[in-house]
Every structure is written in structure tokens, then in C-alpha cells.
């Protein structure tokens, strides 16, 4: 009986008596969700256009952030302008590196593996993950680095609101992350729906063969999506890097984004955002209000359980394409 009270009553009483804490928790969940969604977005882009479940997205985030910080430091060393010039120069150069990476992946990995089962492509992205871990550490070293947030003019500090008889504080960087994520999603959705390349991308997603037969270049499309995923990774890397350090530990975030991915559906861009918010808010609420019951640390698997519950009702995720099977 006592346990039932603790599960079904106490957390809600707590929410009612301290609404400011509830708002704070909700906000943190929202931010975490948006940041997960950014990573999930990278997965979705690549899965949509090439049917590859790209495990390397997590390490691409780290790699992009490391390149940005490393290149900026090098530019400063060479005496390039004030800090922000070097930072924005590094941003452009990093985008170019991601383009090179996309091209290399297409050329050396995807093209020879055309027409292979999905699991083989999945494993190949594992190889890519290992390669990038080694390559990144070789070039930039394994120690954590500080993101050049100030040079990129990212806001710092916190906004405090007085509401519901208490204080709610929002980190400015979190607000910026939410705004940037929303802009990115909107831009990508427009890109997919309205542009010529976007139409080609959707055609490739539907059927490689049919797309080829109407003259769409698969190579070009793949480079484009991997590049887009690289840019998303760069944005993710900046945001996560500004909140903590830039280190290889960030790649475990990729695992955090997987429940978001299956919850929203592998093929849906809005799904990534909605899934991210559900997972982020669910995770933070669960950890804050129900976590003490089980001992802390339930954050590590709660997201998966939430996603699993949704999947039992919708096996293709909330917004995924309906799975139609034929004999």
C-alpha cells in the first residue's frame, strides 16, 4: 500500500505543491529532448535517403566538434584575426571537412556496398565509427577540449523568471539550442518538400532502382545527405560541446538518441523532434519524481522503456511509414 502511494500519489502531490520545480523539470526535459532530436535528425536524414542505419552519427558529432575546436586553435596560432574571425573561419573549414567526409564515405564505403542487406551497411558504419575514433584521436588527441562558444557569439548565463511562487531559470545556451534546432528542422523539412534535390532524395528513399531509371544520380544524392547529416552533426557538436566539454564521451549520446529515433519513426523528420521531446520530458520527469524509488540512474534505460511502450502500439514509431509486407 505504501509503495502504491509512493508510485501513484506522492509524485503528483509533489508536482502540485511545487509547480515551479515542475516547470523547471519540464523545461530541462524539453531542452534535453531537443538536443537528442538533433542527433536523431542526423540518423533520419541518412536512413531516409539511403536506407543506412548510420551508427557513426554519434562519432560524427564528436569529430565535427573536435575539428572545429582544433582548426580554430590552429588558425589563432597562425595569427588569423580576432577570435571570432578564426572561429567562423573554422566553422566554414569544418563544413568543408564534413563535405570531404561525406564524399569519402560515399566513394569508399557506400558505393561498393550498393544492394547489400541493411545489416551489412549497418555494420559498415560501425567500421566507420572505429575509424573516426582512431582518426580523431590521432589528429586532435583524446583529452577533453573547451568549445569556442564565446568566439561563436553563443549566449551565456541564465534567464530567471519569477513564476508560480518560485524561480525558474533557463540557461541562455539552452534557449539558443532550442531555437537553432527548430530552425534546422524547418529548413530541412522545406528542403525535403520544396526543392528539386529534396524531391530527388524522396525518390531515392522510395526506390533506388526507380530513382536511377529516371536519371537521378545516386552518388550525388548520397553525398548530399551525408553532408547534410555532417552539418547537423556539427550543429549538435557545438550545442552539446557548449554545455559540457568536447570529448569522446559525447559519442555515447548517439545511444541516447536511438530511443528517440524508434519512437518518432526512422523516416520522419518531425518524428525526430516530437520523439525527442517525449523522451526528454519523460526521462527527466521519471528521473526526478520516480527515480528515488528505484535508486538513481534510471535515466540510462527509462528512455528505452518509454519508446518500447509506444512501439508496442505503433511498431513503426509515431510518424514512421506504415510497414506493409507482401509475400
Amino acid at each position, binding site marked *: 500500500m505504501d509503495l502504491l502511494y509512493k508510485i501513484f500519489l506522492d509524485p503528483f502531490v509533489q508536482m502540485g505543491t511545487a509547480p515551479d520545480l515542475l516547470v523547471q523539470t519540464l523545461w530541462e526535459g524539453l531542452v534535453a529532448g531537443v538536443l537528442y532530436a538533433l542527433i536523431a535528425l542526423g540518423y533520419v536524414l541518412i536512413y531516409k535517403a539511403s536506407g543506412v542505419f548510420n551508427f557513426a552519427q554519434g562519432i560524427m558529432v564528436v569529430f565535427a566538434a573536435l575539428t572545429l575546436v582544433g582548426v580554430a586553435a590552429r588558425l589563432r596560432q597562425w595569427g588569423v584575426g580576432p577570435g571570432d574571425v578564426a572561429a567562423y573561419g573554422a566553422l566554414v573549414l569544418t563544413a568543408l571537412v564534413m563535405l570531404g567526409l561525406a564524399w569519402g564515405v560515399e566513394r569508399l564505403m557506400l558505393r561498393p556496398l550498393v544492394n547489400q542487406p541493411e545489416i551489412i551497411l549497418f555494420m559498415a558504419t560501425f567500421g566507420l565509427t572505429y575509424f573516426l575514433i*582512431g582518426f580523431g584521436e590521432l589528429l586532435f588527441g583524446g583529452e577533453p577540449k573547451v568549445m569556442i562558444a564565446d568566439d561563436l557569439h553563443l549566449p551565456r548565463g541564465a534567464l530567471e523568471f519569477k513564476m508560480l511562487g518560485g524561480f525558474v531559470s533557463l540557461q541562455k545556451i539552452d534557449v539558443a539550442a532550442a531555437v537553432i534546432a527548430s530552425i534546422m528542422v524547418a529548413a530541412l523539412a522545406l528542403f525535403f518538400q520544396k526543392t528539386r534535390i529534396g524531391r530527388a532524395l524522396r525518390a531515392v528513399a522510395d526506390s533506388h532502382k526507380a530513382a536511377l531509371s529516371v536519371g537521378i544520380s545516386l552518388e550525388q544524392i548520397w553525398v548530399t545527405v551525408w553532408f547534410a547529416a555532417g552539418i547537423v552533426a556539427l550543429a549538435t557538436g557545438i550545442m552539446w560541446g557548449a554545455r559540457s566539454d568536447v570529448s569522446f564521451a559525447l559519442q555515447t549520446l548517439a545511444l541516447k538518441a536511438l530511443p528517440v529515433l524508434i519512437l518518432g519513426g526512422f523516416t520522419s523528420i518531425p518524428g525526430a523532434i516530437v520523439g525527442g521531446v517525449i523522451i526528454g520530458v519523460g526521462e527527466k520527469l521519471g528521473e526526478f519524481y520516480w527515480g528515488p524509488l528505484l535508486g538513481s540512474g534510471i535515466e540510462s534505460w527509462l528512455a528505452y522503456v518509454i519508446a518500447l511502450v509506444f512501439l508496442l502500439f505503433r511498431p513503426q514509431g509515431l510518424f514512421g511509414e506504415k510497414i506493409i509486407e507482401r509475400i
Partner: protein
Amino acid sequence: MLYREAGQFKTTYGADQSVFPIRQDRIGIALILFAAFVLVPLLASSFALSAVFIPVLVFALAAIGLNLLTGYAGQVSLGTGAFMGVGAYTCYKLTTYFPQVNIIVLILASGLGSAAVGSVFGLPSLRIKGFYLAVATLAAQFFLSWSFVRIPWLYNHNVSGAIEVPTRTMLGVAVTGPNATPLTRYLVVLSIVTLMTWVASNLLRGRIGRTWMAVRDMDIAAELIGIRLYSAKLLAFAVSSFYCGVAGAIMVFLWFGAAEADSFNIDQSFLILFMVIVGGLGSLIGSFFGAIFIWGLPIVLRAAPEFFGLTIRAATVEHLQFMIVGALIIFFLIAEPAGLARLWQIGKQKLRVWPFPY
């Protein structure tokens, strides 16, 4: 010339359906078993036994377990490491409660605990398919990893949070614990792995294996010809977890000697998935090849710079090793997506028709 079945006539159904219908294969397997049971113990140093042979066998067993599920029944799982952990912790609890029972019996019994947990986490597999299922099995991985840390009962409330393997003897010889020699441990591991591989190969040749393969090839079609999907998939999860559980138990009891929750983390799951894919999906011998390749590659890479007389900093070697392993995985997938087992088959076929091209 030597490897040819011409002239070997089968006069009974039994002979036709034996595990190794070709005489040369029987001789070959006898030679391999002889080498494994006699030559290796005679020639290998204890370091080689505990650093190379025991790990390869343990991983091969785990890879067979995952291969049953992923390669034969077509259900991708990323929770292998956790299921190995369940086996190890079950064995630890069992030997705590029943210290007098033979440790080998307990190791095999601990697979049952793992099988039970595995079939619970296999429950979503009827609704969820493909990568959605793969990600859903990560729920098992993370939940179980968390339990290994947060449930002190599992590790007998040790302060260190680790499980320490007690000494258990069999016929007066220490089999587990710090006093057991690498040789004894190797022989025990080898016997268990041989036995379980044999069981698996027979399981796969029979009704159950065929059911799994039908489910893998197309589950709706399998359902239409009267296969009960739910029981087939759950059985696959249970048997696979059984194998992984036993592999986990021997990993801790006969190789590590002590383990904590971190030994069964997600990297372990991925490592074994590598072995299965590189070795060949749906092939028992491929599981062995995969284990040898993935475990042996870093050892070779570490030794390589010295061999060529190069001096590279240790950290650089490690980074290069990551890069080379990654590149080699991609290379192997491109060169032979069906895995090392396929190369083995091609080689055998070439031998059969030699000296003719086909």
C-alpha cells in the same frame, strides 16, 4: 585431389544425413579436435592459453549464441553482453547457494537463468521487427547493466561491487578461482564449447533450426505455412540467451576470475555482433572464424610495429589500431559481405573440383 567425395557411397539414410558426410571432413574435424585437446595443451604456454585460446573459445560460444538468433532466426539483437552478464551473475549466485554442486553443472544451469531473462526481452519481437527490434533489445542491455550495479544482492553485497570467483574443485583439481591452472581452465572451456557447438549443429539441422530459418527468410510466409511465429521467435531468444549465458559464465569463471557490471556493457554486445557478421551470418564455423579474427587482429596489430622494427608511441599505436580495425571491417564487408565462412566454402569448393576450374 585429396578432398573429393567420389567413391564414397551412402547406403543408408543415416549415413547420408550424418553431420560430416564426407570422409575427409571427418578426418579434418578429428585432426582439429586432436590439435585442440592434445597439441595445444602440450605446446602452448600458459600465457598463450589464457590470453588467446580461452578468450577465442569464450567469444566463439557467445558468437554462436548470437548467430542462432540473428543469423538463423533473423532477429537482430544488441543485448548479447547483458545476457552474458545474466549468465555470469546467475552462476555466481548458484555457486554461492550450492557450493558443493559441481561447477560445470552450475555453469550449464546458469544458462537457464539467462534463457528465462532472454525470452522475457524477446517478447516485443512479434510486434516489432528489424532495426526497431534491434534498438528495443538495447532496452535489455541498458536495463540489465543498470541492475548489475543497482541490485547489491546480485554480487552478495560486496563493497567493491564486483563478483569474485571462488575456488571450486572437481576430482580434486581446482577448476575455477585463483588456484586453477590455465591448462585446466582451457580444457574445461574447450569441452563445454565443443559439446555446445555439437548440440547447436544438431539443433539447426532439425525441425527447430528449419523453423528459425523459415522465420528469418520471411516471417509472414513462415506463418502461412503453419509455423507459430511467437513460439519460434521466443525459442530463438531463449536458446540464444542460453548460449550467451553459458559463455558469460565461463568468461567470468574460467577466464576473468572476477568481473563487474562494466564487463557486460554495450561494447561487449557490439564486439560479438562484429564477430558474427565478420565470421558469417548463419554459420557455426563462421562464429569461430569471427572470434579468431576479431580477437586476433589487435594482438597482431600490436605486435606488427615491433616486427618491422618501427618504434611508434603506444598511444599512436592504439589510435592506428582503431583506424585499421575500422578500415578492415569495411574492407571485409565490401570484399565478402557473407563473411569469412563464405570464403571457407569457396575454398572447399575449389579444392573439390581441383585441378579443374569447375
